[in-house]
C-alpha cells in the first residue's frame, strides 16, 4: 500500500506507567488513511491502554500523540457504562452524537439492523448491541474508526460477518480502522497491518509476514497447518472451527 505523507494519528515513543510498572514503553504507532491496523497481544499487554492514549482519554507519561487536523474519530468501546436506569431508545442513543435522523437511519441500515431504532437499549441482544455501537461509531462519518474488540459476545458466524462489514465500511467511508482483536484468524483476512503488542511493540507488518515472525511465534505459539495461531489464553470460540481462513487469500 502506498503511504500518504501524513499519518492520521501517530504515537511517538509513548511511555505509560502505573504504580511504577511500565504498561507501555517506547511505543511508536502510525495509522494512515484507508489502512486497517489490528492490535493484538496477550491479556494485560496494554492494548486498551494504548488505544485510550491515542483517543486522548489518558495522557502518556512520556512521548507524544499527533493527530491530523480536524480528525473525526468514531469509537466503539468494549462495553457501555449505560445501565437500565435511563429509558433510552436506539435512535436516541445515536442522536446523542448530534446527528440528524436521516444519518441515524442510514447508519443503522448499514450495520444491518434497520428496524431497531425504536427499541430500548436495555432490551437489545449482545449482537444487536455490538451493531448499534458500531452504528454510533460510523454515524458521524469518521476519518478513523477505533474499535475495541468489536465482535465481543457475537457468535462465530456473526463474527466473520462483522469483520467483513468493517472491511467494507473502510472503503465506503475512506477511513482508517484501528482495532483490538483476540480473534486472530478472522482478523487476518481483513487487515493490512498487524501490530503485536506486549508492553512494547514486538513486531508489526503484513499479516502474512508477521505470522512467521519469531517474536510473534514466541508470543502466540506455533502456527498450525491451517494458519491459525494457537493462543496462550483461551477464548470460548478459539477452536479450529469451519471459520478458519488461510492467510494467503489476497
Amino acid at each position, binding site marked *: 500500500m502506498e503511504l500518504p505523507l501524513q499519518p492520521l494519528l501517530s504515537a511517538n515513543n509513548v511511555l505509560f506507567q502505573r504504580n511504577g510498572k511500565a504498561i507501555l514503553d517506547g511505543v511508536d504507532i502510525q495509522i494512515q488513511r484507508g489502512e486497517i491496523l489490528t492490535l493484538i497481544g496477550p491479556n494485560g499487554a496494554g492494548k486498551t491502554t494504548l488505544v*485510550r492514549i491515542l*483517543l*486522548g*482519554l489518558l495522557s502518556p507519561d512520556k512521548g507524544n500523540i499527533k493527530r491530523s487536523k480536524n480528525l473525526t*474519530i*468514531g*469509537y466503539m*468501546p468494549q462495553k*457501555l*457504562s*449505560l445501565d437500565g*436506569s*435511563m*429509558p*433510552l*431508545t436506539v435512535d*436516541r*442513543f445515536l*442522536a*446523542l*452524537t*448530534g446527528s440528524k435522523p436521516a444519518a441515524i437511519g442510514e447508519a443503522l441500515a448499514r450495520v444491518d439492523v434497520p428496524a431497531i431504532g425504536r427499541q*430500548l437499549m436495555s432490551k437489545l441482544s449482545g449482537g444487536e448491541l455490538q451493531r448499534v455501537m458500531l452504528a*454510533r461509531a460510523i454515524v*458521524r462519518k469518521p476519518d478513523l474508526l*477505533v474499535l475495541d474488540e468489536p465482535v465481543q459476545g457475537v457468535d462465530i458466524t456473526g463474527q466473520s460477518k462483522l469483520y467483513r462489514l468493517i472491511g467494507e465500511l473502510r472503503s465506503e467511508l475512506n477511513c482508517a480502522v484501528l482495532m483490538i482483536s483476540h480473534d486472530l484468524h478472522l482478523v487476518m483476512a481483513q487487515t493490512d497491518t498487524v501490530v503485536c503488542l506486549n508492553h512494547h511493540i514486538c513486531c508489526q507488518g503484513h499479516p502474512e509476514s508477521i505470522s512467521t515472525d519469531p517474536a510473534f511465534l514466541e508470543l502466540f505459539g506455533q502456527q498450525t497447518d491451517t494458519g491459525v495461531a494457537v493462543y496462550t489464553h483461551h477464548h470460548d470460540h478459539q477452536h479450529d472451527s469451519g471459520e478458519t481462513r488461510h492467510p494467503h487469500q489476497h
Partner: protein
Amino acid sequence: MPEFLIIALLTGIAVALVAGPLGCFIVWRRMAYFGDTLAHSALLGVSFGWLLSINLNIAVACGCLILAMLLVLLQQKRLLATDTLLGILSHSTLALGLVIASTQANIRIDITAYLFGDLLAVSIADLSTVAIVSILVLAALAMLWRKLLALTVDEDLAHVEGINVFWVRTSLMLLMALVIAIAMKVVGVLLITALLIIPAATSRNLSKTPEQMAVIASLLGMTSIALGIGSSYLWDSPAGPSIVLASAVLFLLSLPLAKKR
C-alpha cells in the same frame, strides 16, 4: 387557604420543578449519596455564615458549591472510589460544622428546622430566591441537555465525540449543589435526597424517554408537595416529612406499572 400556605406551596412547587430533571441525573449516574454529602456540608456553611456574619443562604450555597468542586477535583485523581470520597467529605464537613458551631456561644441552630426543613415558615423573599434559582438551573439544564445525556450514557464516547467532559460534569455538580442548597430550606437536610430521588425513580417506571422521565419526575414531585402540604394543613402533620411520604406512596403505586413493561 392562608397566605403562608400558598407561599409554601409555590416554593415547594418551584423546588420540585427543578428537582425532577436533576433527580433523574442522580438516579442515572448513581449519585444518591452526593445529595446527602452536600446536605451535611450545609451545617458547615451555616457555621461559617455565622462566624463571618454573611447571609446564611449565601453561606450555605457557597459551602455546597465549594464541596462540589472539591469532589470533582478529588474524582479526577481517581485515588478512591467516589462513594468512599463522599463518605469522607460528608462526615468530616458535618463534624467541622458542629465543632465550629459549638465555639460560637451566640449560635443557636434550630436542629429540627435544619433536619426537617421549615417549609411553612418561608417568606416571599425565600420564594423568589427559590423560583429564580429554579428557573436558571432549568435553563442551564436545557442548554446542556444533549451533552449531559451523552456524558451519562458513556463518558469515554462523549469525550471522543468532542464533548468537554470535565466542564459538563462540573456544571452538573455545581447545578446540583445550588439546588440542594436552596431546597434544604424546604424539606431539610435529612429528606433532601428523597425529594430528588423518589420522584425520579417513580418516573422511571412510567416513561419511555429520558425527557419524559424528567418531566414526569417534576410532575410527581409537585404532586407530592401538594399532598404533603395538604396533609399538613388538614391533619397538622409536619410538612417536610409528609411530602417525602407522599412521594414514597406514589412510588409504591407505580410499581405494578413497572412490572407490566
